[in-house]
């Protein structure tokens, strides 16, 4: 028999906690991706400093940097999208069960 009432409230609170954890880790991933992008754009600018002797940009390195940034950004997006789905589901369940909603709200307010 699926949980209802307060027990359901606890279950959807766990969804909320999971979503919160996923979002926090997504922030770290986006920061890592940003730092990589900063390095790539700085390097391209630096590579052009040699006016007399054109310094060739290595497209292979640039692509490797871009691919790596994408791995980090995709991970961040997967974390955020999964978090959103869990949050939405928690809200959907709370909308159908008043006792669950009350317990969910109480637990969220205590989780500060």
């Amino acid at each position, binding site marked *: 028999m699926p949980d209802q009432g307060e027990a359901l409230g606890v279950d959807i609170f766990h969804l909320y906690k999971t979503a919160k954890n996923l979002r926090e880790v997504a922030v770290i991933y986006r920061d890592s991706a940003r730092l*990589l992008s900063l390095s790539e754009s700085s390097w391209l600018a*630096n590579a052009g400093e040699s006016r007399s002797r054109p310094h060739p940009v290595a497209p292979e390195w640039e692509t*490797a940097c871009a691919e790596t940034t994408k791995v980090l950004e995709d*991970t961040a997006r997967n974390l955020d999208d999964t978090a959103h789905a869990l949050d939405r589901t928690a809200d959907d369940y709370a909308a159908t069960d008043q006792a669950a909603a009350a317990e969910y709200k109480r637990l969220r307010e205590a989780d500060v």
Partner: protein
Amino acid sequence: MSFDHLMKHANDIQAKAIRNAKIDQVKNAPPVYPDGIEGYYSYIPSMFEPFSQMPDPASYDHMIGNMDKSMANLCTLSGVDPFDKDHTCMINTDMSLGATDMSDWNGKAANLFKERFVEPFPKYSQNQFTLVATVKSGLLAYQAKWAAARRDIDELAHSVENALDLTGTQMFPDKNKWEIQFTVLASITAVGAAILALGTPPTSPVGALALTAIGAYAQTRAVDAPPDLPEKRTLQGETAYQITNEMTEALNKINQTIDAADEKIAAGFARTLQDITDSRRHLIANRPALADQSSTEIRGYDGLGPPQ
């Protein structure tokens, strides 16, 4: 290191070459200068000028620092930077899915999420740490290349000036030989680091999983193959003409080593790109099905399942 004074060296070399050439002329040493001695040796500063514009290796420090910060975020199992022995990270305890609690939810997508995303998460993150380290190694290689190129050009300039000083003071100079080194290619090397096997079955790869790149020889902790040894060359000459001819050939050689290093780095990262493609399922978990399920689907047995 007097690289910052390279153009002064170039101008001094020009002046001394002119001085010596006039003395050589008195001794009837070849060549004849149809356009005059000053006109002939006017090319010298312009040969050195492009080298004076080479990037400052220190200008890569900020970019390398950003890569280090990115790696620090991703460090979940080991902080050892495989390609930089001066760099170690602390384990990032914030990089954890330890607060996830999906024990109440046992639908198909929920179980796959727990098994294939949450449980192996530290290993994916550690592999991403290694991936960023691989990209960073390219910056270390460029930095080492420019440092070596500056060293080589500075050594050449000094040695040519010394040779002109030595022979210019002697009416009948002895055989004059001196040795220089070309160190650019020896400054970079192939690097490789193992990554953890992960992903959906079959997970056992054929052979070891590794990411490869080109890094700085002096920085890397362990090399797969030693780099090219510094190439030594003996230069010789007693007249201004002979010495500056040797100088020109050596300058061209330094140019060639810089181009060859660029090609080596590019080829190395072409392999890196292939490694990233081949290893992708070990570098990033599949997107959880939960992320794309509808409100109805996610509450069913194919999603989170009934709350228990």
